């Protein structure tokens, strides 16, 4: 086990480094950066939904919360290291409170969806209505539907004058995604991750074995929110403005679509789905014949009907079918277990 784990991490690092090095030759780093940030956001939902069975309809809320936390803190502190940390911690705390309320209440999947959706809407409505000058946190005005512009973007820790932008910002984001990916891989290999998978497959059984299901789900939910918050902070620093649309339903819907299209129960699927669809949207945005939303919707419907498992698992199946049974090492990958809880 130990040896193969080490090999896995090494493979990820080598592949990741190769991709980080090769991709700028194909596309400019400004576009790539946003694709990477969306990839991280996709991964955050992919973790809690694909491996924990928690369908969160409001992952965008944590993304927005991270972005707003970063923006507000950056204005107040005038540098970016502490705001970055806060942008990870605050969504995680928020998710932990929300999650504890939902999971200890033993709400079923549908009600979970409703509550996360409603919380996102509350945040959206609230942030939208904060245009007045009375809504300030420290030196930062919340700005309502105009959002918050003009905050300190990412700088080298300890030196607020040394901004990280352009190519170097791309490398920062790419390495951050790689680290998050490694973290997720490690988490899923740990006993915590294994039990999370068990909860996804059969919650009653795991709880009868003596594990505190609600606590574990809450922690997983908070970890997902922390990753989404980090993606939000990176997004804020990339876009140099945060607006309430981060909290919108369309944003949350997109994250779910990325996961479905890329493939649930895989780590790479949501990243691929996010980057691929965001890139497609970027290309489609340059034409005006067909509305963008229509295509996004159509993709979601078609995938649910015809390829509900997503691209990456389908490719993996195809790959295994072509190569026969594959090497025995592949077999133990528990994340390829069919989702029994799909219905």
């Amino acid at each position, binding site marked *: 086990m130990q040896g193969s784990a080490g090999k896995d991490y090494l493979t990820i690092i080598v592949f990741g480094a190769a991709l980080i090095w090769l991709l700028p030759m194909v596309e400019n780093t400004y576009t790539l950066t946003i694709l990477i940030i969306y990839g991280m956001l996709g991964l955050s939902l992919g973790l809690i939904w694909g491996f924990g069975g928690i369908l969160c309809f409001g992952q965008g809320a944590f993304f927005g919360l991270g972005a707003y936390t970063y923006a507000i803190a950056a204005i107040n502190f005038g540098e970016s290291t502490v705001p970055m940390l806060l942008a990870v911690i605050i969504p995680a705390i928020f998710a932990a409170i929300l999650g504890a309320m939902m999971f200890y209440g033993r*709400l079923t999947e549908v009600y979970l969806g409703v*509550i996360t959706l*409603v919380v996102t809407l509350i945040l959206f409505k609230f942030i939208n209505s904060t245009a007045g000058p009375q809504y300030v946190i420290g030196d930062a005005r919340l700005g309502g539907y105009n959002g918050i512009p003009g905050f300190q973007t990412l700088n080298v820790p300890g030196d607020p004058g040394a901004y990280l932008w352009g190519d170097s910002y791309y490398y920062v984001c790419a390495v951050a995604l790689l680290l998050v990916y490694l973290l997720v891989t490690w988490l899923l290999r740990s006993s915590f991750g294994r039990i999370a998978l068990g909860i996804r497959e059969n919650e009653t059984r795991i709880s009868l074995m003596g594990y505190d299901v609600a606590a574990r789900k809450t922690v997983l939910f908070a970890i997902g929110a922390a990753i989404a918050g980090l993606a939000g902070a990176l997004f804020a620093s990339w876009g140099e403005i945060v607006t309430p649309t981060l909290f919108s339903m369309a944003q949350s819907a997109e994250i779910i*679509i990325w996961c*479905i299209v890329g493939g649930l129960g895989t780590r790479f699927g949501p990243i691929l789905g996010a980057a691929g669809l965001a890139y497609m949207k970027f290309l489609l945005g340059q034409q005006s014949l067909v509305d963008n*939303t229509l295509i996004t*919707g159509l993709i979601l419907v078609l995938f649910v009907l015809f390829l509900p498992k997503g691209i990456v698992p389908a490719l993996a199946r195809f790959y295994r079918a072509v190569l026969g049974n594959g090497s025995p090492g592949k077999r133990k990958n528990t994340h390829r277990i069919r989702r029994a809880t799909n219905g």
Partner: protein
Amino acid sequence: MDLSFVILVEMLYAVATLVLISAGLAVVFGMMKVINLAHGEFMMMGGYATITAVNFGVNIFVAMLIIAPIAVGLIGLLVERLVIRHLYGRLIDTMLATWGLSLLFVGLATMIFGNTTTGISTPIPGFTVGNYQVNGYNFFIIVISIMLIAGMLAVLKGTRAGLIARGTMQRSDMASALGYSPDRIYMATFFCGSALSGLAGAVLAPLVGLVPTSGVAYIAKAFITVVAGGPALIAGLISSAASFGIINQVFAFAVSPVIGDVALFVTAIVLLRLMPQGITSRFFKGKL
């Protein structure tokens, strides 16, 4: 005195609006267990159907009460045959597919009608009570939703079709053993649900500036009203619409409309935490 009358009307109006926007979803979700996240877009299309018909010179009441429900019902029929039929029993997949549909309809409406606000004026003039101006159309909405509830009750309880539909939703295997086609009954029920959504959208159209994304504003409220209502279809609809509507208005009057909405959502979350199966799982048990 005048003020309390105005507030009473506003409260009733808020409750009536919630009943109206949730009725279609109550049928589709409450009976068929299909979570239709495109419900808001069905309402949006009802609104556009009305406005288009009025622009063609049709009487506004005919457009609202007849054309819009039929048009949206037919769209619903198409959706049921093409998409939802394949997903019965797969709750989460239905949710995702209908979310896709909702985006698709928004895109479609944007392409056809453009991303601009359209609207029609209310056909009923306002009147004054003491020092206050009351919108006459509010009464129309109150009357329509009372008629809607009465109609649904009559159809579900009083007619053979309603009995068959309710029976099929409970035990579709038994219904098919008795010679009814569950497939057809599901189709018809979805048609009715969509038509109700269309009607709601049409009736509310004169009050709001309609944009292709209007549906989003309705879906969350409709959803929580139905979910909080619980298993009993009509009793649940009325009880949750009443509690949410009143709380919404109290906070809207006391603080601001935005806080009213926030209070509504917070109440919904607390309510679901306390009664995860909805209000009617604890009160009004066994009612329709």
